[in-house]
Every structure is written in structure tokens, then in C-alpha cells.
């Protein structure tokens, strides 16, 4: 068998189709050719910048002249930078509102998709906002939530309540951004959860029904536990995505009023591109990187997201 492979080369190996013969064959040269473009992209725009970003975070660099090594000075500085801590606090507030609202609404919608309307049209309509650019979602709500002319404030006044400065007041700036994001993502998240619901075999529910479980028991004891891997994935996506909020803030409040909505990515952007402090901005980005890695790791561990109870 092995001998014939050597004699006949690749063609022979394929002809007898044996698993062992195929395993001895190596396509390394062709494979390199196939992955060459992707590999260039990976090295040039992911690996090199990751290392360069790490290096820059230990330098002072204004782009105009060469970076100078300053050791851990940037990290010591950010530990005492009130604007950094403010940015972190504001971002966490945004993330928390998003997790709670988005996951709760999406779970409700997913159950409705499962039990009330399974039509693609319904799912399509709920997915619409997600297909819009963040910039479009931001501008659309910037207009609808306008203090003077916005329809939402007109409705609020009609209900006999005082108008709300959604973008202009410090206490509303971040919740408003989070609401816009929830609006854009709720249908998408619901579809992810819906796909997870459909993967739960019907036999489990039939068994529960025979045992006389009511709908609440079924949801708490069967649906939620079996949906756990999907919920874990959705939470990781929501949290890592929300930590990197930028577009809506850049288009609407630009960090204001004062510092109320200066989220961490907007702060990094300002440091790098308006104040030309690339070294300090890189250190801030490094912290964001570390936070995201820890959050993703902890969430997957706590929710044991990579293993299913169905297996």
C-alpha cells in the first residue's frame, strides 16, 4: 500500500482513496500558495500592528518625530488620569444598560418568534435596524429624539410629562446611546437566540409536558439551561461590541455634554488624532484589549459557553 503510493504519487493515492495513503501526502507547497494572500493580510495588518501597538504603548510619540521609549510612564499616567477613569465608568454604564436591556428584550422576542410567529417576514422586519450603519441609526434617532422638534418628545409632552434632553443632559447622554444600540441590535440578538431555541429537540418539551410542567417551569428548567451556550455567546458578543462603542457617540454627542458620553474608544481617538499622543493612546487601547480579553474569558468560563448540556 505505502509502496504503491510512493511509486504512483498523488494520483495513485487518490485512486485507491485510502485514508492512510492520503495522510502521508503533504500539500504544503500548494497550501502555501493558497493561503499566501490571507497570510500577508494576517501578518501585515494583524500581527505587526499588534506588536507595534504594544511597543508604542511604552513610548511617547507625536507622529511628527520618532517615538521615544518612556518605559511604563504611559501606564502610570493613565492610572492617575481622571478622564481615563471617567471614560471607563461611562463605558461600563453603557455596557451594563446594553446587556440587561438587549438580552432581556431579545430573549422575549426569540420566544415570540418560536411560539407565535415563525414567519421569515417578521424576522426580516425585526432585523432591519441591524442592517443600517451605526451612523444612520444615530442620525435617525438624533432627529426623532430632538428636544424641540423630535416626535418622541412630542409624544412625551402629549402624555403630560416634561420634555427630555436626550443628548443634551449629562444623565441621559449614555442611556440614550445605549437605547439606540439596543434598537439596532435587538432583532439580530433575538435571531441568534431563536436559532439556539430551534436546536433544542422537541422531545425534551414533550417529556416535560407529560410530567405536567407548566410553561414557567419549562422555561426555567429546560429552555434556559439548554440555551446556555448560545446565551454565553450572545453575552460575549454584546459586551465586547458595547465596550467598543464609537460611531454613535462620534456622530451625536461627541463625548459631551462635558465628559458625560466620552466613552473609552472616543477618548483613545481624541488622544491619538486630535492631540497626537499616539503613545498614550496606544496604552489606553492596550488596556481596552486586556479588559475585553478578561471579560470574554470570564464569561465563557462562568457560563461554560463551549459545552452544551445536550451533548
Amino acid at each position, binding site marked *: 500500500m505505502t509502496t504503491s503510493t510512493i511509486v504512483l504519487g498523488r494520483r495513485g493515492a487518490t485512486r485507491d482513496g485510502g485514508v492512510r495513503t492520503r495522510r502521508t501526502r503533504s*500539500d504544503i507547497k500548494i497550501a502555501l500558495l493558497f493561503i499566501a494572500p490571507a497570510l500577508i493580510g494576517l501578518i501585515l495588518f494583524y500581527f505587526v500592528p499588534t506588536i507595534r501597538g504594544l511597543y508604542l504603548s511604552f513610548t511617547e510619540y507625536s507622529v511628527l518625530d520618532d517615538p521615544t521609549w518612556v518605559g511604563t510612564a504611559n501606564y502610570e499616567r493613565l492610572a492617575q488620569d481622571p478622564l481615563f477613569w471617567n471614560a471607563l465608568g461611562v463605558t461600563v454604564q453603557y455596557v451594563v444598560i446594553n446587556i440587561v436591556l438587549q438580552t432581556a428584550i431579545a430573549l422575549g422576542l426569540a420566544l415570540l418568534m418560536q411560539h407565535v410567529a415563525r414567519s421569515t417576514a417578521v424576522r426580516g422586519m425585526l432585523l432591519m435596524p441591524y442592517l443600517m450603519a451605526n451612523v*444612520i441609526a444615530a442620525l*435617525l434617532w438624533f432627529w426623532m429624539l430632538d428636544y424641540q422638534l423630535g416626535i418622541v418628545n412630542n409624544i412625551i409632552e402629549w402624555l403630560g410629562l416634561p420634555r427630555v434632553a436626550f443628548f443634551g443632559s449629562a444623565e441621559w447622554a449614555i442611556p440614550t446611546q445605549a437605547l439606540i444600540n439596543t434598537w439596532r441590535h435587538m432583532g439580530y440578538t433575538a435571531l441568534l437566540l431563536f436559532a439556539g431555541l430551534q436546536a433544542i429537540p422537541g422531545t425534551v418539551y414533550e417529556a416535560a409536558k407529560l410530567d405536567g410542567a407548566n410553561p414557567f417551569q419549562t422555561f426555567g428548567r429546560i429552555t434556559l439551561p439548554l440555551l446556555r451556550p448560545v446565551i454565553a455567546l450572545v453575552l460575549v458578543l454584546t459586551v465586547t461590541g458595547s465596550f467598543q462603542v464609537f460611531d454613535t457617540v462620534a456622530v451625536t454627542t461627541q463625548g459631551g455634554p462635558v465628559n458625560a458620553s466620552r466613552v473609552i474608544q472616543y477618548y483613545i481617538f481624541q488622544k491619538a488624532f486630535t492631540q497626537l499622543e499616539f503613545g498614550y493612546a496606544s496604552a489606553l487601547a492596550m488596556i481596552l484589549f486586556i479588559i475585553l480579553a478578561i471579560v470574554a474569558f470570564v464569561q465563557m468560563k462562568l457560563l461554560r459557553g463551549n459545552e452544551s448540556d445536550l451533548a
Partner: protein
Amino acid sequence: MTTTTTIVTQGRRIRRRVTWGAVFGWICLGIAIAISILPFYWVLRTSLSMNSALAANSSSLLPVEFNLGAFARVFGLQSTEEALAQGGSGAEINFWQYLLNSTIFATLTTAGAVFFSSMAAYAFARLRWKHRDLVFGLFLATVLVPPIFTALPNFLLIKNLGLLGTMFGMILPYIFMTPFAIFFMRQFFLNMSREVEEAAMIDGASQWRIFMQVVLPNAAAPLATLALLTFMGQWNEYFWPLLVSDESTRVLTVGLGTFKSQSPQGAPDWSGLMAATLVSAVPVLILFAVFGKRIVNSIGFSGLK
């Protein structure tokens, strides 16, 4: 006996759903759909209104003084005096240029990323070589790096290459691959039947010819889905073009942002802004109208497996 009980309970459950659960469920769904869809109507209503008359009729459900002036302003078909009279800002916005730039940017990056990623995915799914799974893991690991972290050094690289403000510099980081595209196509290739490839191999076709003439045509459906998702993502991209584009290469998302901040001190040109927003969304809306089902059905797959 057991069978009978099942049927009875099922019958009861269905009847109860129609009366209570379904009504309540449809109300909730209706609210969610309304919240998702109605803002788009409001954009349309505003864009068809006369901007100078909006303030006095801010709650009118129909367009106020119906006219197409806002769209004319967006496409630069209105004189400055006319624009000012209708409540426009009079500032110029090169909408056609932005539209063209967005189209070039999204098309080229999609074509490149989908094709090169498919090549790599084929090598990861079908070819046998040492450290294959390790290298694949490296590609996947890049999703953990937040884009802002690589964006700063990438900006410096593009700047050092003298490509700031050029379309080439803007598409370069996206054109070689996306980790998602590699993952998506690999998943498909793994499940594809080997028979046709093996027949071609016996005929003496090279790996490259097999890939181009047998594998890719067979993968038309997932390639279309992937291209669709990639295109929409690139069309909506904001951060990277904001960093590297200048006036001549500015894309729609960035242009919209500046359009908003260009409004002079007085009342903003809401009609114009909403018309521009609507036009920017049109390509994605058309894709969704044509391929809606494909997009909706791809969501579970893309997120989960």
C-alpha cells in the same frame, strides 16, 4: 392510553394559546416590529417635507408641504439661494462622490476578502500540511484583538507608505481576508462532497484548476451569502474610513457625519439630513428586499457554528 392523553393536552394547549397567549404575543411582537420599522417611515416623512415648515408641524404624520427639495439638495441640484429659502444650510456636500467612493470601497474589499479568504479556507479544509490547524487557529485568534488596537498602528503604516487619503490605502487592510470569511468558507468546504474534486484529480487537473473550475462554482450559494454580509458590513464601515480618507475619498457614512455638523447656527436642515440618510441606506435596503430570506437565514449560522 398515553397517546390519547397527549392528544387531549395538546388540543387544550392550542385552544388556550389562541385566546390568551397568542393575542398577548402578537401585541408584543407588533410593538417590537413597530419600533423597528416606524423610524424608517419618519425618515421618509421628514425627507419629503419642507424643512422651513417642519418646526410648525413637528407632529404631523404626513410630510409637511410635500416636496422633493431635500433630495435635490442632497444631489446638488438646487441653487444655494433656493436651498437657503427651503431651510437648507447652503453648504455643499459631494454626495455623488461619496456614493461612488462607498461603492468602490465596499465592492473591492468584498471581492478581495471573499476570494482570498476562500482560497485560504480551501487550504484549511482540503489540503494536508503540517501545522494546518495551528495556523487556522492563529487566523481565528485575530477576532480577539479589538479593531481600535490595530487601527492606530495600521494608520501609521498607511501614513508611512504615503497612502493617506487614497482609496488604495483605505481598502488595503480589508482586501486580503477577514477571519469570519475564512471560518465561514472552511465550514462549507468541510461538508462538501469530495467526489467531483477527486474525479477532476484523476483527470490530472491541478489543485488550482480544481479550485477555480470545480470547487468555487459548487460553492456559489455560500459565496453569495458571504459576499452579501461582507458588502453590507463594509458599506456601513465608519471608523477606518474616518481615519484615512480625505475629501476626495470620503465614503457616505463619514460624509453623513460631516453633513450633520455642517448645519449652520440656525435650525438644522433636518429634511436634507434625513434625505441623505435615506439615500445612504437605499443600497442595503435593495439588497435586503432581493436577498432578505438568504440574509435572515444566515444569521443563526454566522453567529453559532
